[in-house]
């Protein structure tokens, strides 16, 4: 059974039809990527699934629950977490306080402390800067913090919206390595990326989103071989 099943999702911004019936699924343990150009509806899809933007039609089933009409905080409580586009760490809070915010729905017990240590192990830069105000971190460090913060809720499904955006090539590689690692440790990943080459390379399956609809799907390898994808997203 799929961990996440999106059926016929339609989202409107006023009269603009941003998603025109998007359907896809993510199975437990997979890395699934949505690729697509700017304005294809990738971020809208992500935000609609987690309840930040209301959908007009369609259903979203997560872990056996219909979450289509559920408010965001209840969906998060079911074990879904998202690293939003542009990272959106809390600029005025410290690195540590940001991680604590990520664990908002959890008790601050020993397990919580162990998890913070685990995040510091995975992201040593965050450990070095744990008392620094998040707004003063570099873009790469903020991305690490956003990922660490999202992991603090112990999600079954981690969604990442453009995690490589605005990062240097070296950092981009690092981010994709970390995503692979997180997945190996048992977290299912739904990724949205413009960097199609890198993301298809680590994906089990992928979908191509164009102007609000899925136009192509397949395994990561199939899509990176596809002429259409090569032409449109991998630079020929």
């Amino acid at each position, binding site marked *: 059974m799929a961990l996440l099943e999106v059926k016929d999702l339609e989202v409107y911004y006023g009269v603009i039809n941003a998603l025109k019936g998007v359907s896809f699924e993510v199975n437990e343990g997979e890395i699934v990527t949505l690729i697509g150009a700017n304005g294809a509806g990738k971020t809208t899809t992500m935000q609609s699934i987690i309840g930040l933007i209301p959908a007009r039609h369609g259903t979203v089933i997560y872990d056996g629950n219909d979450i289509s009409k559920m408010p965001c905080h209840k969906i998060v409580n079911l074990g879904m977490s998202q690293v939003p586009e542009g990272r*959106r760490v*809390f600029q005025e809070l410290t690195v540590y*306080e940001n991680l604590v915010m990520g664990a908002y729905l959890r008790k601050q017990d020993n397990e919580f402390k162990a998890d913070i240590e685990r995040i510091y192990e995975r992201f040593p830069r965050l450990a070095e800067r744990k008392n620094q105000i998040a707004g003063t971190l570099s873009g790469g460090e903020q991305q690490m913090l956003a990922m660490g913060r999202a992991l603090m809720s112990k999600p079954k499904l981690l969604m990442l919206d453009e995690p490589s955006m605005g990062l240097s090539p070296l950092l981009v590689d690092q981010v994709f390595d970390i995503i692979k690692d997180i997945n190996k440790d048992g977290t299912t990943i739904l990724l949205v990326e413009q960097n199609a080459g890198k993301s298809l390379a680590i994906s089990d399956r992928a979908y191509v989103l164009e102007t609000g609809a899925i136009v192509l799907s397949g395994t990561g390898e199939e899509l990176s071989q596809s002429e259409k994808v090569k032409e449109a997203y991998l630079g020929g």
Partner: protein
Amino acid sequence: MEIIETLLNGMSIGSTYAMIALGYTMVYGIAKMLNFAHGDVIMVGGYMLFITMASALSNPIIGLIFAVVVCMILGITIEKIAYKPLRGASPLAVLITAIGVSYLLQSTAQMIFGSAPKMVILLDLGNIEFGGLKVPVYTLITLGCSVVIMLVLSLFVKYTKTGRAMIAVSEDKGAAQLMGINVNGIITITFAIGSALAAFAGFFMLLKSPSLSNTLGAMPGIKAFTAAVIGGIGSIPGAMLGGLLMGVVEAISFKIPVIAPYTDAIEFLILIVILLVRPSGILGRKRREKV
């Protein structure tokens, strides 16, 4: 000696403004709206004090508790009925609604209690004298209570889970929701806290001058809003600072016969000057525009 008396008086007026300004600034920070009915919550609190004092109980402390509870319920109700349905609507629509709520409260109070001012004598405390200083006791009560309340509020925001959630919501509502924070719940709590502070402000105002009418909260509301903007709207320390500044300026201005009649004008002049020099207020930050 007189200057110290004036300053103490100013600080007590100012801490009353600060109480009200905190309500404006917290609601603005969290819900991103200007709640222009906030001043009238003070007035409702005043009438609750009046009811208690006119009843068999006739105890100012019970009156204060009654006023705080009623104001909290009122604040939450106003938010649920008038503002929540407009979440996501244009700021102008929300602003007009808030002004409508303000008039609704004033007119309702007038229908129930009439338009003649009521006298609400809470406590007759007299003056305290030491070392040549003559200070009315209500000044010290107002000042002392305000300091405690502001301290508790600051600690609450910084060290409790709910307080941190408030900071998160005021910085980025969407990201806060992704943390699992129930934003509507946080907004409700904010309105409750702001309205409770308004009830305290009403108590302090009636302690100082016992005349109560349905426009009790109108002018102090506007001045406290000015104080919040001067301090930097959205900033809690800013509201405290702005409130104190307004109160001290007001007290000093009253003492100087030539400018005393223009006190209100001077206060608003300060607002204009601050907005010209530092548009985000003394302690306000420039908000980064998010893409």
